């Protein structure tokens, strides 16, 4: 089993909230993603058994939503918004700065498997641009200094 007891319990709770089981697919995928860090066929199969919806329907939905990485990523998934409001305040050069600090290119993972760097579409943080999301957390009004501090803290945590 990939999903732990907590995740299974959470998913089962969700199923009971909806008139139809299928509606629990997205919440279940989200719970799995938060635990595992990415989604794959094995996860879909486990969810399928828990919420009693055919595997293919889980996979069909999951592959539509780009929020869920479908391959293994680093412990910290660094997602930089590169849409217009953030770009006007230097999001492109923020990506370059992160590439330099992490010594990887966009789309890559550091050798210690700690950080994966990606760009994402608008995260609704336009008046606090530029911004990035690392795992579940938003980091807004970014400056070089702030980015340095955030990366240091995460490296120290390991």
């Amino acid at each position, binding site marked *: 089993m990939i999903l732990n007891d907590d995740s299974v319990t959470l998913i089962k709770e969700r199923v009971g*909230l*909806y*008139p*139809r*089981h*299928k*509606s*629990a*697919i*997205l*919440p279940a*995928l*989200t719970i799995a993603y938060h635990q595992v860090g990415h989604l794959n066929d094995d996860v879909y199969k486990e969810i399928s058994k828990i919420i009693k*919806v055919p595997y293919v*329907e889980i996979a*069909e*939905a999951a592959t*539509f*939503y*780009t*929020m*869920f990485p479908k391959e293994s990523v680093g412990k910290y998934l660094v997602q930089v918004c*590169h*849409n*217009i*409001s953030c*770009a*006007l*305040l*230097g*999001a*492109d*050069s*923020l990506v370059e*700065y992160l590439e330099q600090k992490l010594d990887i290119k966009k789309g890559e993972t550091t050798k210690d498997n700690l950080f994966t760097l990606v760009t994402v*579409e*608008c*995260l*609704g*943080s*336009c*008046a*606090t*641009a*530029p911004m990035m*999301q690392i795992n*579940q*957390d*938003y980091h*807004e*009004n*970014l*400056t*070089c200094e702030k980015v340095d501090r955030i990366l240091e803290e995460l490296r120290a945590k390991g």
Partner: protein
Amino acid sequence: MFYSPVITNAAEVAQSEKLHLFRYVEDPEQVKIGTYETHGGYKAWKKALTSMKPGEVIDEVKKSGLRGRGGAGFPAGMKWSFIPKDSPKPRYLICNADESEPGTCKDRVLMERDPHAVIEGMAIAAFAIGCHLMFVYIRGEFNHSIDRMQAAVKEAYEKGHLGKNVYGSGYDLNMVVHSGGGAYICGEETALLNSLEGERGMSRIRPPFPAIEGLYACPTIINNVETLASVPHVINHGADWYKTLGTEKSPGSKIFSLSGHVKRPGNYEVELGFNLKKLIYDPAYGGGILGDKKVKGVIPGGSSTPFLTADMIDVNLDYESLTEAGSMLGSGAVIVFHEDTCIVWVILKLIHFYRHESCGKCTPCREGTGWLEQIIRRIEQGKGIPGDIEMIEDVCGNILGRTICPLGDAAVMPIQSSIKHWRDEWQYHIDNKKCLVNTGFEFK
């Protein structure tokens, strides 16, 4: 707990007798139900449920002229009245919190800082349409909004504002906080319905409209977060009071998300009809342009709305004035860019977004946004060829009005408007293989 650092004009709103949405959003205690109740919270829900008939609630909201704050501006009360009165099927209310139109960051603030206001507005709307199970569909990345809403829903159940036999009225009302998958398209109401049913978020052909056949093929109303958060104020103070705010055709107040090259980006609640130039330059709001540069253009209502040029910004922010100016109020996301911004670069950012977010159901949008990105990217990279502008116009013309949902139109309208306003600059970019202005926004 997490608190978004976004600037608001809560202090001004607290002084005002009329503005209401942002009155308590700088009070960290407002998220707690006790504080919300002390501030008059859940009075409107109790009033509606215990002293009004559903039809009276609909009439009051209709009379208030409250229009949808998500983008389309459709009158909320009228939408509710489309629910068939004789249908034996369950009815559903969905709060659309899939906020993802570039530039828009207002619903998130309401959910994070005043979640009970959203629940109260939803409850009133649910009662008006005879719904006993309501959903808030929150985009998946908004983890903090989801947590806040879940905590608030739990409190509302504990205090008897939700659940069985609310206020002893015999009316049952349950609520589910649903997390989405971060797809822009799911803010479109029929795609949202598919997504909530566990399908891929692809739009549906209308008719049937959701009010007739929506979630699980049952009558369904979908309203934006800000629209619903406005409802308790309409019920508390009445439609006549609400209409004293704003303009005749655009009553009420609205939150504008101001972003881009302004000194004080933030979320500002103002009356509809507020002057855009004032919003950008007044020290109480935007405070002017970074580096005191000149404005080049403004996107007034989210990335899907046509541009305003510098000489057009002395305009009032209401549905009718912006339509007259050739644009739209949209979601109220005002994106400002200054003179050192290449228009081709701006458009490349936008079309990349729409290409990524196109659900792929309709050929014109799926293929067209891809072609547009390729052509625009080559122009931006200095590889444009004569005829590219005409080709862009041709592709745009073949997307506009030819798709099931408005995403295709949304992708096209800013492009067409940019060519209309800055055609010379597009041509310069192709002829000289470089930007007319030196665009390079440094992150510091």
